[in-house]
């Protein structure tokens, strides 16, 4: 009997390996990144990017220049310098024959009155206050159907609490709605570093960057009067035109901001304070109905570390993905894909990896009229996986359909997953082909958050549609307001037996829909893993008799840990990214214990060449920290 099971097990391994041997195509086999021939000497730290009606693209740079790139898809695009000398332009828009840009301190209309190809009128549409802090970046404008603009405003940081977002002047930490006549209506607050905004179906969505009160990058739907979570901007809700009345005091009474000093009068960083039980973002929603929970999280370290632009895929672009949303990420130089649906009147949905490997930090995206996506990039001051300082690149689709999850929709008892191509039904009907886990983040004044309240969500059954393109899974332990990681590593396409290009989906379950649940007779509960598990046992028993030796994990073994704790969000084994290469860490000749200590208490001052500080990784368990530290030291 045991021989038979071993045979089955080996056969399964053979099938899996064999499938891999067929070399399932990868994202780069469908979406190609190419460069744009650019005149020498131009520094394209792209902060704004938009397409003009004739197919030219206009881009703005952090060094204050605006270029029109004529025939951008041709072999020799022509770069025309349209405007200069503006202040860190982080957004550009075309409306009614003029370009509009967000500078640090104002929304500006650029007009070429004498038609010599250069702007000669730099008209202030609306100027907003600034304190002059470096982090007071301003993003946008994005256009609403009524002709008004949205502009978003970064927070400053504290002088003696450099980790704390601070709204020193109105309307930092806010989204402003600027009317064509130059009046401004404060629209929503609670934003920290709102680098990306997008108008989808005339609704405003924005992306934020991880930090205090913002545990992870995400897409958030903002209505007038919404509060996105960071309390700094609440300082101005007393002003007569504020659309919400929630005060900072009310907020801090419910959620301690941890503004504490030590005996010597120095502020203590929030993560170094001992505190009681933690809150999660949904608790803030319970306390304050104004709170806008993310519609879709882009889990930090997995789908990015600094989310940027979000843009809807138009009809006839990128094949099956038309209508979905692409979200850029600066630090990881990549683009994720998002599908959104509305449940109980609120947006929620699912995110996947889409395309990585851009040369610098992805900040801005715009659709070319040729079917391609232009991508504007910069990483100055932060670093990114793509190690160039700036870039303008183009993403094109080769019209082949990748085997992907097209959508994941919430169901009363689980999820419905639609694929771009029919699945291998035998594997799809096997519940062991599915793994669902859920987690959430803390809502607190500490920079970022570990993943908390992890739980397994057992898959109880599956129903595969007749055409093999849709599966519905029945999942136990669904949790409202949690992120559900759906892993389909074992799902194959019916044709060619390909694996999914991106087998992991991250569904933000803000609401569980009402409706009909599947009944047992409809679903398959086949579970091949249950069988495999039985015969695994003897191996485990054999291991028990061996002494436990601390052994250095292989690269393949360490990879899941580096991913789990988001180490690889900023570090690569050999290459400098946002943080130093692990191999460069080994040059410091730290002991394993020292590395463990540094995981929990990083010393960024020891790495002066790196602009972005490493946050303390308190969530890594000691034994895993040791595995990681030993592995790092094995790279010497």
């Amino acid at each position, binding site marked *: 009997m045991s021989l038979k099971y071993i045979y089955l097990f080996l056969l399964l391994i053979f099938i899996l390996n064999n499938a891999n041997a067929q070399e399932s195509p990868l994202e780069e086999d469908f979406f190609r990144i190419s460069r744009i021939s650019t005149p020498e000497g131009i520094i394209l730290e792209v902060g704004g990017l938009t397409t003009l009606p004739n197919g030219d693209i206009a881009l703005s740079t*952090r*060094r*204050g220049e605006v270029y029109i790139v004529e025939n951008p898809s041709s072999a020799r695009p022509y770069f025309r310098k349209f405007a*200069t*000398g*503006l*202040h*860190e332009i*982080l957004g550009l828009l075309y409306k009614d024959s003029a370009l509009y840009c967000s*500078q*640090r*301190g*104002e929304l*500006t209309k650029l007009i070429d*009155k*004498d038609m010599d190809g250069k702007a*000669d*009128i*730099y*008209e*202030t549409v609306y*100027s907003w*206050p*600034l*304190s*002059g802090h*470096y*982090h007071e*970046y301003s*993003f946008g404008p994005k256009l609403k159907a009524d002709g008004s603009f949205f502009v978003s405003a*970064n927070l400053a940081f504290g002088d003696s609490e*450099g*980790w704390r977002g601070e709204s020193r002047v109105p309307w930092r930490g806010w989204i402003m709605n600027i009317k064509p006549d*130059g009046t401004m209506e404060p629209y929503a607050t609670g934003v*920290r*570093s709102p*680098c990306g905004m997008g108008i989808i179906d005339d609704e405003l969505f924005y992306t934020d*960057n*991880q*930090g205090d009160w913002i545990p992870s990058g995400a897409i958030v739907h903002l209505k007038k009067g919404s509060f996105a979570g960071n309390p700094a901007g609440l300082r101005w809700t007393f002003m007569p035109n504020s659309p919400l009345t929630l005060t900072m005091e009310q907020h801090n009474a419910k959620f301690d901001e941890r503004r504490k000093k030590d005996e010597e009068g120095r502020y203590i960083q929030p993560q170094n304070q001992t505190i009681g039980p933690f809150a999660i973002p949904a608790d803030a929603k319970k306390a304050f109905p104004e709170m806008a929970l993310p519609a879709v999280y882009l889990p930090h370290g997995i789908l990015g570390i*600094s989310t*940027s632009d979000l843009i809807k895929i138009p009809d006839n672009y990128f094949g099956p993905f038309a209508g979905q949303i692409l979200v850029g990420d*600066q*630090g990881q130089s990549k683009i994720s894909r998002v599908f959104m649906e509305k449940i109980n009147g609120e947006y929620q949905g699912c995110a996947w990896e889409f395309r990585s490997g851009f040369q610098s930090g992805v900040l801005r995206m715009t659709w070319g009229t040729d079917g391609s996506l232009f991508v504007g990039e910069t990483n*100055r*001051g*932060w670093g990114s996986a793509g190690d160039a300082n700036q870039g303008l690149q183009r993403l094109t689709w080769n019209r082949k359909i990748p085997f992907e999850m097209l959508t994941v929709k919430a169901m009363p008892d689980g999820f419905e997953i639609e694929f771009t191509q029919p699945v291998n039904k035998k594997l799809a009907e096997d519940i062991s082909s599915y793994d669902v886990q859920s987690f959430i983040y803390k809502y607190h004044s500490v*920079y970022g958050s570990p993943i908390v309240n992890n739980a397994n969500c057992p898959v109880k059954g599956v129903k595969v549609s007749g055409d093999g393109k849709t599966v519905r899974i029945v999942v136990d332990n669904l949790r409202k307001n949690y992120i559900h990681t759906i892993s389909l590593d074992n799902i194959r396409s019916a044709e060619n037996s390909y694996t999914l290009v991106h087998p992991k989906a991250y569904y933000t379950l803000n609401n569980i829909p009402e409706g009909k649940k599947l009944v047992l007779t409809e679903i398959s509960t086949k579970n091949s893993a249950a069988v495999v598990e039985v015969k695994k046992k003897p191996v485990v028993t054999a291991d028990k008799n061996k002494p436990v030796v601390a052994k250095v994990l292989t690269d393949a073994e360490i990879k899941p840990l580096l991913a789990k704790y988001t180490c690889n969000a900023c570090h690569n084994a050999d290459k400098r990214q*946002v943080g130093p290469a692990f191999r460069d860490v080994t*040059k*410091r*000749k730290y002991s394993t214990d020292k590395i463990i200590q540094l995981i929990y208490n990083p010393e*960024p*001052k*020891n790495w*002066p060449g790196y*602009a*972005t*500080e490493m*946050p303390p990784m308190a969530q890594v368990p000691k034994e895993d920290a040791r595995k990681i530290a030993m592995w790092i030291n094995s790279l010497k």
Partner: protein
Amino acid sequence: MTKQPIVVHMIKFAGAAVFLLATISATSQTAISLNDLSAFKNPGKTWKLVGKVGADLNENNILQSSPGTGILINMPGKKETGVELSTIEDFSDMDLELDYMMAKNSSSGIYLQGKYKILLNDSWGIPNINTETNGGIFERQAPRQNVSRAPGLWQHVKIAFQAPKFDASGNKTENAKIIRIELNGIIIHENVELKNTNEVAAGPLVFQGGGAIAFRNIHITKYNGLPPVFADIHYSVYYSKHETIPNFATMKADDEGMLYQISTAFLKNGQEFVIRYTGNIIIKTASDYIFQRETYGKGFVKINNTVVSDITSSVTTPVKLEPGTYPFEIIYLKPVGWLPASLGLTVSAPKIREFLMSDETSLYREYPDPIIISASDNIVHRSFMDIPDGPRVVHSANVGSPKQLHYSFDMDNGTVYQLWRGNFLDATAMWNGRGDGSSTPIGSRLLLSMPKQSILQLNTINDSVSKDTLFTTKGYEIDKQKNTTFRYTIHGAEVKDLLEVSGNGDALKRTITISNNPGNLYMNIAEGKVIENSSKGWYTIDDHSYYIRIDNAESVPVIKNVNGCNVLIAPIKNTISYSILY
């Protein structure tokens, strides 16, 4: 676009490691008295002392003066050709600092040791730079920028000069050298070697006699002390980690020996260590000495058994030493292996120019590459702009001109608040790394006022507080001549504020045109401690800092007193036009 805020900079390692050489140095400055001419040899007839001086911008080579003392003036005329004026005293190594005022088209100069000429010429508004440009070193080097002010305005020059050196038999061992010249606050020369005939170790300070020029506040720092030297330098190095000074008696050095110079250049890379240098310092000139260290890591300096800087701080205490030989002890701890070793020790005394006593190659310093914006064409560049001892202007438009006269406009108030001459903008602070959003003028800056509104709505001209501060910026427009017109509304009025660099860069002309005037509008043209109406339509501000010329006004401006300051103010209905000259 953000993660953690930056708290580390390229050089300043937060918390511990680095101390830069502080700029404290002990000097003793003496003034040449201008109460009489007793400091000078046989002054010629064109040289005299006056109490007040000024120039007419239309009259060549003429300074107007009134009796008194404190200002030395040379006024050659048709009858009296000027002769040079020489000090009685001879000088060798020195810092010379003085104010001077040129007459229109005048040409003069200073001869260091009577030989090495620094040109003092009227180069106002001349964009081409050559060795004849104001501040040039005669037949040797042109200044880096033309930062010259107009005739009749005080300019300030600071010259660090090193005399030629000779051995016992009189052979020259080292050329004379301009270490640095700062003109109107800007470094225009560094490290220029000088040669001449019949050079000597010491010579007088000589002022050229040909052109009309005035001098005041002549200060000289003499560096005639003999520098100290280290002798019998012994080192012992221990490659182990120490945060505090260890008990060396119980330790065995990994390496030890003698050095001819304090150095870390020979140490192993990438190691934690503590190195201890001991020996003697030979003092030749009695003085208060300042020993300043710069270390990546921690340091300790003890001279003549006195701790002058300890392990917790590089702040140094002066130590008084008579000629003689004294023991010294220097300890350098580097408890972090990967930090580069870097050690420097400078010494200075009132008569000894600060110099590096340690090995120059032992200093490790890294600065960002400068990012310069030049104004080869008219250019508007917005940034944050920090006003020295003032606020940060957050909506500043900085406008550059190839005529090398530039200005900053505060778009929150509708005010020109500064001008500068020379090169345009340094954007390193804005564009290196994340940047702080600010840029800095490269040239010589004139601050006109703090950023505040210059158009006021007053009940009467004697009021000082405007009825309201309503202001909305509308942006700016560049015209065919590439001049910039700022537009804004203030107190309900619509304003066009045209700014042009006129002539060869002589002046910034401002023309204000108003529509929808609600009435009672006044233009605050200039503010200062003292504003003088020097001639019709001409005003001199603050001890000859700059001029205002009224080009077109609906009524004559008034100088009024507000809280002990003078304000030049004029009512406006439709327009006013004036120029700022400096």
